[in-house]
């Protein structure tokens, strides 16, 4: 295998892993910049995956090729609905953020599997007919070398994810809304005295995380696993949270971290097929992503500082 096709394989594989993580990690960044710790990303991804698969199975004939994209919207809406539970619990009822998030993580898999049994009388759904396939950018894929590596037979969603990350960064750091959201996460008391509606801003942070988390779950289900079962989303939500922290609560950082995790994972898998690396016992390659993560964390990352008021409940004093 020549090095061009090898690189193209690694890039493509990285995108496969990372895309759901990028969306969810950006969502997490929004929520936590507003001051609400969102541990429930895993549960939101599960519900996003579940709803998108159900939608896809039911409406694949009506919408044809557009079905997976509409499935993303459905996943987003359901993600928002679930995140509202978390938002209400933490903002209105002042519950502990981590407990509330954990409740979502316990609720979602159980609820979704129960609903699958109720709707389909089976423990896991059938495979969807319309999934996200490969995409070659029309003109760009013809560029020699770079075209084949980055633009041919790749995932369109990955590029959308990168654009969303840049957009999110711009919203969070260059717009008024972003400034307000961040201030509410740093010092809600001060923000309140200046007339900002702390509750409303925190709600919007959580809702955005629900939206993006739902999309992340929907992408995973519709492009990687092709169906929904109890074991579809296991850990991806937590990995996204790790990516968010790795990226220091910055959307671009979170995207970079998610891409790094995906890269490490795909290296370990594709490495098994490269002539030289294939001789290494499989177990070292399987452990490699985690070791690599720790090494990068220790050597390059410095202190990760979370928004100051992240995790505290704000009570509007009289």
């Amino acid at each position: 295998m020549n090095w061009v096709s090898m690189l193209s394989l690694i890039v493509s594989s990285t995108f496969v892993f990372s895309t759901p993580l990028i969306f969810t990690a950006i969502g997490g960044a929004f929520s936590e910049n507003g001051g609400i710790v969102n541990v429930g990303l895993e549960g939101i991804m599960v519900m996003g995956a579940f709803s998108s698969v159900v939608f896809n199975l039911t409406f694949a004939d009506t919408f044809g090729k557009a079905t997976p994209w509409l499935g993303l919207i459905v996943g987003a809406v359901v993600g928002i609905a679930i995140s509202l539970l978390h938002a209400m619990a933490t903002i209105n009822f002042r519950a502990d953020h981590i407990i509330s998030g954990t409740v979502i993580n316990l609720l979602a898999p159980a609820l979704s599997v129960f609903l699958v049994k109720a709707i389909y009388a089976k423990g896991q759904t059938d495979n969807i007919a319309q999934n996200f396939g490969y995409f070659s950018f029309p003109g760009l894929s013809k560029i020699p070398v770079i075209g084949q590596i980055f633009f041919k037979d790749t995932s369109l969603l990955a590029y959308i994810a990168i654009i969303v990350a840049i957009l999110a960064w711009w919203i969070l750091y260059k717009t008024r809304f972003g400034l307000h959201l961040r201030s509410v996460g740093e010092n809600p008391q001060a923000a309140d005295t200046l007339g900002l509606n702390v509750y409303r801003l925190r709600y919007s942070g959580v809702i955005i995380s629900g939206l993006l988390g739902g999309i992340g779950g929907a992408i995973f289900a519709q492009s990687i696993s092709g169906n929904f079962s109890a074991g579809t989303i296991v850990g991806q939500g937590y990995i996204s949270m790790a990516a968010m922290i790795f990226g220091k609560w910055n959307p671009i950082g979170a995207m970079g971290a998610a891409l790094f995790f995906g890269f490490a994972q795909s290296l370990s898998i594709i490495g098994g097929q490269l002539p030289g690396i294939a001789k290494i016992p499989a177990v070292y390659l399987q452990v490699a992503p985690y070791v690599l993560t720790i090494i990068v964390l220790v050597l390059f990352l410095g202190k990760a500082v979370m928004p100051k008021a992240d995790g505290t409940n704000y009570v509007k004093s009289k």
Partner: protein
Amino acid sequence: MKKAKVFATAVLTAVVALTLAGCAGKKSGTGNSGKSETTKHTVALITDTGGVDDRSFNQSAWEGLQAWGKSHDLSRGNSGYQYFQSSNESDYIPNINQATQAGFKTIFGIGYKLQPAIKQSAKDSPKTNFVIIDDSIEGVKNVVSATFKDNESSYLAGVAAAYTTKTNKVGFIGGVKGDVIDRFDAGFAAGVKEGAKKLGKSITVINQYAGDFNAPDKGKSIAQGMYSQGADIIFHASGATGNGVFQEAKAINQDGSKKVWVIGVDRDQSAEGKYKTKDGKSANFTLTSTLKGVGAVTEDLSNQAMKGKFPGGKHLTYGLKQDGVGLTDGQLSTKAKDAVKEAKQQIIDGKITVPEHPAK
């Protein structure tokens, strides 16, 4: 203080009421079957972490049990047949305990992961019959070990692949390295080798393990790597990780540049291979699937237990001869089908012994 007292009384009343309701409910629930409990045989299934709809093992066993129950007029529940789903390994012993306490006379543990749990429980409950599927327990009188000669069905899959490949490269994706997947690995490689020899060509098998039975993203990436190296058929023995393999093959086939195949495992996975070509025609990329007769074995052993002939302490192996494993016809060409048939007969006649472990 008064409020606390009222609250405590209320709770106490509720608890008493619920206990009485629970006791009363038990008798009325089983009244509809009409037969007395002592003549019936009750069987329970303890699933692996895949669940009864993992589209393979556990589902097959459950379907076999349901067929058995139906043919003996039993209903689902504690007086007939039932399954207990394990969502992770720590559920195994609690589920088995639940089954023994509910009075089930025969308990099936589906999957090699349940071996320690079944062994322990069999020693604790010597009057109950236990079956472990896909592993062996020696020296315990009330346990039957049932293993399958998956190496034989994988051999047939290898022959089918050899007769179908156009690029002379095929792939094998394993789940977790171990005795069970070793059989698939070794059988497939041997079958490909034999088929290649008969056709007079040289076929390479690319081999990689995902390290997980539930990682469709890894499955997709590994399949992507193999297909881009030129493999046109991939045999997966990786459970839910295989979902990713199917997704990858679907994406490639729908793209239209080349045709790739997947060989399914444990049950007919042709439903997962449906796709629409670029011209809009319906096609299928599941070349064939190896079958594991977990359902038939479940039914058979339940019958034997019911008749009082439970072969406790024995280790039964089910191969092509006993129809315990097999290969579907799938999309095989006539030439491939004939080759498979011939190989099957040779294995049954004992002319070919298929290795159980891959060559080091």
